């Protein structure tokens, strides 16, 4: 296995592994603590991979997961996908390259800029693709799809739009999720609550009923919408994007030229998040609560928080796999004025400078094919970006978590695919933190963020 950035496990990955790979990308439902692969199945996949050698053309596929890490289901699933690809394309070999998620963008940009580009980046999220495309690191797939007669219309247009920059698609999305609302059913029964909240107001009120105090400190918190960035928080995988949309806000104009993160509806949403955070002693006290009650892990897993927003798959993948799984159920996210959730999207993209663009395109296409999306759905409970496949997957009709998740796609949003998409994400987090820590009012924090993101966007628009 080729290792970009020189080592298989980064410095940061010593501390942050597993689900946090995807959490950083806003697709945190990918964490998995119970392996879906037996040791025998893993060994068989790895042995098979070794047998594909001396192909006329070998392409390198880079991703932040590893097939040899025994706790990593995604890595071994990807290896199986490459095995199937090599079965289907006897002339092409696929070399598995690993880069830790925290250094993925860095490794990719340096490799591409240094003329040592991997052939396919098989794991890029929607937050990074526009930024990488705008900076010239990725090539568009439109011409390849057209030449191949591939109908991109088979892929959900919202998922595809997350990869579309300046009218061109820069990746083939093969997986997406959306955020839904998880609650601890034992806590609900204990408090006599029979149905999950449907509005913000109900969520906060129910949260207060579910709180448990030990003296002056909380040993259990019912609900907190937003936590400071940078660690497991009581707010789960929500971020201001969710609440901005649920309050009818818009982060950017429809033509993607004017940044509106200080939209009054978004300012109001942040003010509400701060208000609820302050009810529980503020951001620092939350950090203390996480450290104490949840031992530094996701507090829903330890029964320390009763309600939490997380991406689809969190229940089966993380809660059921935790040391003492709690009983849970799911519902649509409570909202204020507008029913809304948001999606993270994973795609296969083609770096500029690949020595084998045609073979690389075949692999990207294969990743997004019905066969592989079905395999991911059946093996990892991943939701295909080809909606036509949903009806054919038995679990999608019976798994309550997936049923809610699939229904919620009708209310989903994606982060705006701005050329400075990374800056958009960073500044939203920074503004949220500044407000939560009371270093600035929500209005001041979002005004500042708006100014910075708009300046970055203007620079790209001026040069394009």
């Amino acid at each position, binding site marked *: 296995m080729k290792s970009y950035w020189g080592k298989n496990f980064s410095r940061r990955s010593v*501390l942050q592994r597993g689900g946090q790979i995807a959490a950083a990308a806003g697709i945190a439902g990918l964490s998995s603590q119970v392996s879906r692969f037996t040791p025998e199945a893993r060994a068989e996949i790895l042995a098979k991979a070794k047998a594909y050698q001396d192909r006329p053309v070998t392409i390198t596929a880079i991703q932040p997961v590893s097939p040899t890490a025994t706790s990593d289901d995604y890595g071994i699933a990807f290896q199986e996908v490459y095995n199937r690809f090599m079965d289907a394309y006897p002339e092409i070999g696929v070399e598995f390259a690993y880069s830790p998620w925290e250094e993925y963008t860095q490794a990719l*940009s*340096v490799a591409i800029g240094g003329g040592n580009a991997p052939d396919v980046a098989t794991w890029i999220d929607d937050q990074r693709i526009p930024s990488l495309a705008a*900076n010239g690191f990725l090539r568009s797939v439109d011409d390849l799809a057209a030449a191949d007669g591939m109908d991109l219309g088979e892929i959900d247009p919202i998922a595809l739009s997350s990869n579309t920059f300046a009218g061109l698609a820069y990746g083939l999305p093969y997986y997406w999720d959306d955020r839904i609302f998880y609650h601890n059913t034992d806590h609900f029964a204990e408090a006599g609550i029979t149905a999950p909240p449907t509005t913000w107001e109900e969520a906060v009120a129910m949260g207060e009923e579910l709180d448990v105090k030990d003296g002056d400190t909380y040993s259990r918190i019912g609900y907190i919408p937003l936590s*400071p960035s*940078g660690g497991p928080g009581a707010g789960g995988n929500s971020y201001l994007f969710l609440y901005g949309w649920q309050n009818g806000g818009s982060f950017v104009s429809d033509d993607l030229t004017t940044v509106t993160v200080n939209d009054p509806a978004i300012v109001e949403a942040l003010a509400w998040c701060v208000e609820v955070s302050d009810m529980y002693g503020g951001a620092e006290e939350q950090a203390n609560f996480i*450290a104490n009650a949840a031992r530094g892990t996701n507090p829903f897993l330890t029964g320390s928080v009763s309600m939490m927003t997380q991406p689809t798959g969190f229940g089966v993948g993380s809660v059921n796999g935790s040391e003492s799984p709690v009983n849970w159920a799911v519902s649509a996210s409570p909202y204020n004025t507008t029913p809304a959730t948001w999606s993270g999207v994973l795609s296969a993209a083609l770096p500029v400078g690949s020595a084998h663009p045609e073979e690389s395109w075949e692999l990207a296409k294969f990743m997004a094919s019905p066969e592989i999306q079905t395999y991911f759905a059946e093996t990892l409970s991943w939701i295909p970006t080809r909606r036509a496949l949903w009806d054919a997957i038995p679990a999608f009709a019976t798994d309550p978590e997936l049923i809610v998740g699939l229904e919620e796609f009708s209310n989903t949003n994606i982060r705006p695919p701005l050329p400075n998409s990374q800056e958009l994400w960073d500044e939203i987090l920074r503004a949220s933190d500044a407000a939560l*820590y009371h*270093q600035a009012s929500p209005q001041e924090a979002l005004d500042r963020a708006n100014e910075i993101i708009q300046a970055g966007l203007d620079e790209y628009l001026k040069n394009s």
Partner: protein
Amino acid sequence: MLTALMPRTNRGRETMMALVFASPWFVGMAVLVVGPFFMALYYSFTDYRIMGDTQWIGLANYRELLEDDRFIKSLKNTAYFTALSIPLSLIASLAVALLVSKPFRGSTLVRTTIYLPSLFGGVFVAALASQVFSGNYGLANRLLAYVHIQGPQWLASPEWSKPTFVILGLWGVGAGMVLFLAALQSVPVHLIEAAIVDGANSLQRFWNVTLPMISPAILFQTILLLIASFQVFTLTYVLTSGGPADSTLFTVYYIYQLSFQKFDMGYASAASWVLLLFTFATTALVLLIGSRYVHYEFDGAN
């Protein structure tokens, strides 16, 4: 053919051989240090984003830095860290060196034990710190709770995150201890004996004899710590990503963000050069001030 190139004198041949054996260092220095050094200077005057054309934009990056709130904040954070960590590290390493300078039973083991942590990298320190300074669950606050003190939120608090980093910096006092141990061994015994004869107590002997005699080592260690402090990166990269609320956004980490999240290499190069100039200016200032107080015994200079 090769023999024709060899110098005819022994001295010439020795010089030639020395250069041949040293050549890997020269090549490495040129390719990995000097080259990037001047390339970064050139790029600091350009709009360089890895891919695409590089455009000369003169001083635009430097002008932008003057108005960049985050860059200024990162410099302030770095200065805060430097101002606090250097005196504390110096005092701690000197104190430890004084404690173990006299041989006693097991002194070698004690010295080795104190020095050992400085061999571990920043990542190890960070991993440990995440446990020690983790709210009330962490070791630090548990110990404080024994004496009925409610500890702060350390890394989760914008007010406490930088002081926590300073405390973590003390992890490496062992390296300073070794330097001061060597310096203490070189303090002439006759000066100490003369001071004793003159009736000086131990504090007076330390202040008037030992401290002046080891002042060159103190200055040297100060400069080493100064340069290292300006380059603080690993702890913030591993532990806080610059948070909470930019309170641990140090300049090198900001340069990293500019380079690999915004791909703005030209601007990042300008920021690097400003940091270099800050480091250079501060080091020069320390040398200037230090030269007034440092005592060099053998050349007669003060």
